[in-house]
Structures are given as structure tokens and as C-alpha cells.
């Protein structure tokens, strides 16, 4: 397995800027749909090992997890971590009736992830002029999967946090790219940088 070279400083800056723009667009999309204000954190870019990724996902206590893969010019997975608190307020904004059944909660989680991950990915691919298609999201239980057995050593991780201002709800979206896509993205970034 080849060792993926991390991004150089220029590439990183460029990606950071692109992420800022696409995440902003994602937040706007969601805000438009549920008619409320959404704050986003500054996107973080890092290279992680499987165990570090595991730790990254578990930073949020009492969370729901989903994963969603994307194909196209670049391949990878988006993992989302949603706080359990504040979900009922978001459900109200999304026009769900109380009380929420277990199925309702699952549906809301999947839909939220689909919207945010979809918007982020669409924004990013737009900026990079790459085509991507997002597959359907599924619920994920990272505590039940063994991250130490994964077949890769390092991956590029882009992480951003969305916070819905009027409730305690927050959600982190973590993008991971496979090696081949990383090379492809680095090339694309280089092209953009001219």
C-alpha cells in the first residue's frame, strides 16, 4: 500500500478555501429548508490513522452516526456525527409530529446527513470541477466495528461542524478520501493553483 503524501501548504490553503465556500453553501441549503439560522465551524483538514479517526468520531458524547459513500471522479465516505440533544427541536423544524418514534428519529438523522453531506460534497465537487454521486446514507455503529482492522494506514479527513443556533443540536460531517482520490484531488488543486 502506497503511503499518501500529505498536502503541501499551498494545496492545503486552497482546499481550506474551497471547503469554506462549499460548507457555507451547505449551511445555506439547510437553513433554507428548515428556515432557521445555522452556524458552521471553520473546516479542519488533517491526515489520520484508523485509530485517530475512531477517536475523532467519538469526540461527541451520546451521538448518532451515519455513513454514506460517494463515487465519481473521487471516491470516499462521509461520516456524520449528530448530537442526540436538540434533535426534537430540529424534527419540529423539519415538520415532524411529536412524539417521535424510533423510525422517525432514524429517518430524520438519515435525511439530515443526506442534506448536509450532499450539499458539502456538491459544493466541493463544483469548486473542483469534479463529478461525484452520493449514495444513500445508512446508520452506522462505529463502536461495533473494528477500526484497527481497516485496510488503510492514513486518510485525508475534512471535518466541519454545523450548529443550529436555536437548539443545542450540533452535527459534524467528516469526509474521508481513498488514496487514489487524494492523488486526483491534489492534481486538481495543483491545476487550480496554476
Amino acid at each position: 500500500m502506497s503511503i499518501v503524501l500529505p498536502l503541501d501548504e499551498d494545496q492545503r490553503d486552497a482546499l481550506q478555501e474551497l471547503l469554506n465556500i462549499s460548507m457555507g453553501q451547505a449551511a445555506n441549503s439547510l437553513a433554507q429548508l428548515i428556515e432557521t439560522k445555522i452556524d458552521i465551524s471553520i473546516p479542519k483538514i488533517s491526515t489520520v490513522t484508523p485509530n485517530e479517526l475512531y477517536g475523532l468520531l467519538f469526540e461527541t458524547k451520546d451521538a448518532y452516526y451515519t455513513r454514506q459513500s460517494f463515487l465519481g471522479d473521487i471516491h470516499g465516505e462521509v461520516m456524520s456525527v449528530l448530537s442526540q440533544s436538540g434533535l426534537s427541536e430540529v424534527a419540529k423544524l423539519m415538520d415532524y409530529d411529536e412524539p417521535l418514534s424510533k423510525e422517525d428519529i432514524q429517518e430524520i438523522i438519515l435525511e439530515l446527513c443526506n442534506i448536509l453531506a450532499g450539499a458539502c460534497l456538491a459544493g466541493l465537487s463544483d469548486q473542483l470541477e469534479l463529478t461525484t454521486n452520493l449514495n444513500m446514507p445508512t446508520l452506522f455503529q462505529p463502536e461495533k466495528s473494528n477500526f484497527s482492522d481497516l485496510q488503510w494506514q492514513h486518510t485525508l479527513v475534512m471535518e466541519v461542524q454545523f450548529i443550529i443556533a436555536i437548539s443545542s443540536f450540533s452535527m459534524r460531517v467528516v469526509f474521508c478520501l481513498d488514496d487514489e482520490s487524494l492523488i486526483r484531488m491534489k492534481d486538481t488543486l495543483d491545476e487550480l493553483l496554476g
Partner: protein
Amino acid sequence: MFEQLVSKLPVGIGIVDEAFNVVYLNDFFLDRLPHELRKDYKEQPVTELFKGQGKFLKRRLKSVFVLQHPSFSYWEQRPHIFPFKSSRPITGEETQMYQNMEIIPIKDNASGEKLACIFLQDVTAQASYFRAQQKLSQALKKEHAEQRKLIRKLDTAQSQLIQAEKMASTGQLAAGIAHEINNPIGFVTANLDTLSQYASHLLAICDGVESQIIHFTEEMQEQIQSLFESNHYALLKDDITELIDESSEGLSRVRDIVENLKNFSLETSDGYQTIEVCSVAKQLITLISAQYAKPEYKFECAREKLEVIGEPGTLKQALMNVMVNAAQAIEEKGFIKLSIIENENDIAFKILDSGCGIAEQNLKRIFEPFFTTKPEGQGQGLGLSVAYTAIEKHQGKVSISSKEGKGTVVQITIPKIPPQNTPADNSEPTTEALSN
């Protein structure tokens, strides 16, 4: 050709415009539409055409139009979006179709109008298979839990069998020994009584001689005096009664112990009967103090003649096991206090010791059969489990609180009269750490 292909695809394809009006439906949808609607379904809102999940459908379509991004729905969360029957109305087990739905944004090439395409997949077969699997796994889980319960019961039963057998043999042994000891004690006691009489006679003779000494000749007087002195008569006279008294007291203690041992080991009649708890407790303390002499024993009883109805054998065994544990917890100095408290409907035995206590992590396990902290070969870890079962049998409760280095309190509560025909209390024994 493409139109034909699309219409014949085995997935539902429907296209709606921004007002949610139907632009196109393929055969999958049309075949399932009521006859009267098949002719003029176009330009009708999709939510009117397929009522039921209209609100949900509207919401998802809106999200697709606003975000220009696909939306997904799964049968697990929302099985029936469109009110379609299962594709096997005759032989199928499911009556309604399970559906996965995907809505993707598209654009009319000619007009540039924004449209949404609904893909509908019939996943009834997968869903019904998955549900059957789930049912199976649940049944398996249940069975597994029941088996575990059974295994636990078996474990307990086995341990009790071992304990019962052990107790039966020690009981027989004790009874046999007690019987054997009783015989010699009988004649030793009788002989000692006679000896005591003889001694007093002998002393009377000697005293008589001493008082009449002046009537003897001087030579005789000297001889008698020297005889008295050489045999330390003064000392002997003082000591002999005391020695004999002490011996008979010791003998009566031996007799008591043997008697108690017999009472405890010879439970001839099984079954429920009236038990006088105070005397049982006293016997118990006598027995245990004979074996464990270091602790100081205290006893408190609400009143004399306190009675419960129960099985004397198992109840005594339970108390005995708890008391022995208390005694073993005290290595040097300490006390054991057995209090019997009378409540309206029940009687509580409170056994308090100032021994080494039980570590918190062990507290939860003390009632488990074969759990012991004693070195190998010194305990089987059955005492408390046997006690627990005995108390459970009496529909009583046992609770333990302990603090390491301070001591332990065990409280056993049993009803005065066993409630008839009520199921035994299955609650777990309570354990807690002793607060300061």
C-alpha cells in the same frame, strides 16, 4: 425505444414538476393505480394521486427542489410510501409493498424546467426476509436467555446437592459422635458424683482424727501430724472440692455442647413446623463459640418464645452459614452481635460483625454458588448461596451491607407465617456498600 424501456423497467419511475404535478408515470406506477385514475393522472398533484404519505412526499420533494440534491427513504423507517399492494396478492405473506424510494433532481432539456424523478423499488421480498430473520434472531435470543437461566438453576441445584450431602454426612457423623460421647459422659458424671461423696467422707474422717488428736499419745500425735504435713493435708482439703466442682461443671458444659450438636444435626422431621427462634439462636451461638473462641458474642432477642413457622433444618443452616462467615471474618479481636427483631408480619435476624468486611467488587457475587475469597481448599463458596436459597424458600429476604476493614451486617427477614400459594420473590439479593 427509450420511452418503452423506461416504461417497462421493474422499478417505479415518476416525474413531477415544481408544483408536484405528475408529468410522467411508468408502467410500474400505472399498473398499481386505481382504474378510474389511469386515464387522467397527468397534471394532478402526486400527493393527491397517492394519498396517505402526502405530507412526507411533499416535504421530500420540496427538499429536492430547494437543495437540488437527491433524497432517500428506506422501508425500515417508512415501509409504505405509496399505497401499493404486495406484488404477490395470492401467495405472498405481506399484504403491502415495502418500498425504498429515491428522488433525484432533473432538468427538462427542452424547457429547462426543474423536475424531480421518483424512483420506487419494491423491496417486499428483502423486507419480509429481513423481518423473518429478525424474528428468528429474537427467538434465538430468548431461547438463549432461558437456557442461561436454566444453567444457573442447575448450578445452584448442584451446589445445594453437594452442600446437602456434605451436611448430611457431617450431621450423621456429629450425631454418632454425640451419641458415643454421651455414654462415657454418663458414667464419668456418675463416678464423679460418687467420688465427690467419697472425698467428703475422707475429709470428714481426717477432720475427725484432727479434732480428736489430743486424746492420742504424744508419739501417735507426732506421727499423725507428720502424716498430715507430708501429704499437705491443708492444701489438699482446700483444693479437692474445688477440683471436683470444676470438673463436674466442665462435664456439664461438654454435655450441653453435645446436646446442642444433636439438636442441630438431627433434624428428623422435614417440613414446616413451629420454630422457637430465641433458643435456636442461643444453641447456635453456643455451637459456634465452641469452634470460634476469639470473637465476643452478643445476643439480643425481642422477647422470649418468639416463634416462626418454617423448616428448622434449612433455616438453622442458613443462620449457621452466615454466623460462621461472621466468625471467620474476625481474626483477632472483635464482636458478633445477633439481634432478633420482631415486626408485625415478619422476624428479622440481624448479624453484625466487626470483621474484615467484604470488598465492594465481591459484594455483588457473594450469593453466587462457588464464589469464595478463601484460599483454595478452605471453602467451597457455597455457604451464602445455600443460605440465600433457604431464605428464598421461606419467601424471606436477605440483604448485606459491608465496608472493608469495618465489618458486615447481614439482615435476614422471614415472614412469621409463610404466605400460601404466592410465588416466591425472585428479586435479586440486595447488596450495598456500608456508608460511614
